[in-house]
């Protein structure tokens, strides 16, 4: 079974628009949206949710105010600035910052603190016109997005096995940290979507450092390559130096946004130059 992750480093370069189109073009696959804190793929693929699964991420410290003597030991112990004292109401846990380590539970002389499990989000298995979509939504102000990505990928693997699919198509998150690394581990190919801006070039170098660090084969495509052809040339030269193949360039065309507004993958929405470019890219990596 082959796994392909589409990533970018920089946000907003067109990952999800591309994955939405690949979902149309690819055969015999499972689609996985691994951008679990700001997922958008569902806006193109319109999933019908078949199964919803609770995701328990990190635990959270809970304070019993009837036992608290306001001694402040917990605040001193906490490394995550998750316990704060406010005038009038005393010490309290800020769940948005708590990483559930339990150090405060250990040090509290009054045993006023305990660790509790919390539901940090939901994973979904859904039906779409293009095949099964596995996706998730991290709850608001939660930690552990990397663990939720791992759960989505495990769901994708199980479904691919059950349904006899030979491809998992993964939409990654922006950045280079926890959720991105979780969406890359063990995949067969990372397709990097770059944009020809100075920021794009900078971010591309860092994401290619990450794929190299983890020994993951990478290929690249430049989106909106014609908005600054000089920068596109720089990206091309940089990729040649790094031995990263450029599998295609997509021109700028407002049709991509029009397709998004219509809630459709662009290759289904239009037969223009963008769709041709995406089909070529898909032909080059499938």
């Amino acid at each position, binding site marked *: 079974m082959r796994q392909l992750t589409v990533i970018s480093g920089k946000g907003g370069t067109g990952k999800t628009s591309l994955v939405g189109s690949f979902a149309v073009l690819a055969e015999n696959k499972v689609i996985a949206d691994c951008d679990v804190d700001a997922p958008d793929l569902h806006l193109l693929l319109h999933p019908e949710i078949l199964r919803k699964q609770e995701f328990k991420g990190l635990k959270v410290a809970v304070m019993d105010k009837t036992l608290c003597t306001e001694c402040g030991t917990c605040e001193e112990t906490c490394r995550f600035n998750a316990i704060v004292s406010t005038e009038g109401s005393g010490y309290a846990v800020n769940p948005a910052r708590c990483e559930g380590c339990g150090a405060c539970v250990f040090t509290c002389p009054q045993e006023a603190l305990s660790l509790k499990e919390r539901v940090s989000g939901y994973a979904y298995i859904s039906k779409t016109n293009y095949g099964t979509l596995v996706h998730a939504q991290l709850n608001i102000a939660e*930690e552990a997005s990397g663990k939720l990505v791992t759960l989505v990928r495990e769901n994708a693997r199980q479904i691919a096995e059950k349904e006899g699919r030979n491809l998992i198509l993964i939409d990654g998150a922006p950045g280079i940290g926890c959720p991105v690394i979780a969406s890359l581990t063990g995949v067969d190919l990372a397709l990097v979507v770059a944009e020809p801006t100075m920021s794009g070039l900078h971010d591309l170098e860092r994401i290619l450092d990450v794929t190299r660090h983890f020994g993951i084969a990478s290929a690249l495509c430049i989106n909106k390559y014609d908005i600054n052809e000089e920068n596109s040339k720089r990206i091309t030269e940089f990729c040649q130096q790094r031995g990263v193949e450029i599998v295609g360039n997509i021109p700028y065309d407002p049709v991509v946004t029009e397709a998004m507004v219509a809630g459709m993958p662009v290759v289904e929405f239009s037969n223009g130059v963008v769709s041709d470019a995406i089909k070529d890219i898909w032909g080059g990596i499938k």
Partner: protein
Amino acid sequence: MIISVASGKGGTGKTTVAVNLALSLSNLQVQLLDCDVEEPNSHIFLNPVIEETKSAQTLVPTVNYELCDYCGKCAPACEYNALVVVPQKEVMVFPELCHGCGLCSLVCPQDAISEEPRKIGVIKKGWSGDGKIELVYGVLNIGEVMATPLIDQVKEELDPAKTVIIDVPPGTACPVIAAVQNTDYCILVTEPTPFGLYDLKLAIAVLRVLKLPFGVVINKAGIGDRTVYEYCAKEGIPILLEIPHDKRIARYYSEGVPFVNEMPEWEERFAGMIKKIEEYVG
């Protein structure tokens, strides 16, 4: 005043707003903190002269085997499974799983666990090429999972005597919370598209949990549809500024040039935004 610039969706123009806003406040002392430590970009636009580069660290446990009696209390205490005790042989530490909470050293009855720093990235401090803006940014090491401790350390450089602008990473999870917390106001940058709207709503939900006042900047105005405008009107969310989808602006962005430098009529518009924000914050 401390203003954060966030978005939910990536690539909507956070850095564009943060940098151009900073450059438009020429009568104020401005400090820009780039907390997008995974992919920091503000420095590309400011050509800073870096005066100081500091190593950013978290703590990981280290075991003194002269004291360790392999009692095994540390491993089950760790919520992240970062320790494994092999009886009479070794205590294995997995630094990439460790959150640096220090609980293992607290629970060890033999005082055999101490903590040592582990480098996760660097913090760079300097001034924009024109000497007007103090810039601080973090760069997370390649392969490093946890951005939050580095973001916290960038924010320790905050100078409350200045007008501080914080460039926040995309998304809605822990790095975003670390970056926006304890700021006075948050500017949410979005684009008027379905993806922009969906992620804007998520970002707004985060800010409501944190009880932070916020307003919206619409970038690439003219593309997409009207749903972001309709949503903001319905929710009573102020639209602070619209930046049009403009070839010149896009071109300057692609070249790493802050567009207020080339289109000075925008300086007043960005500076005017601060006045609006001051009114909201009171």
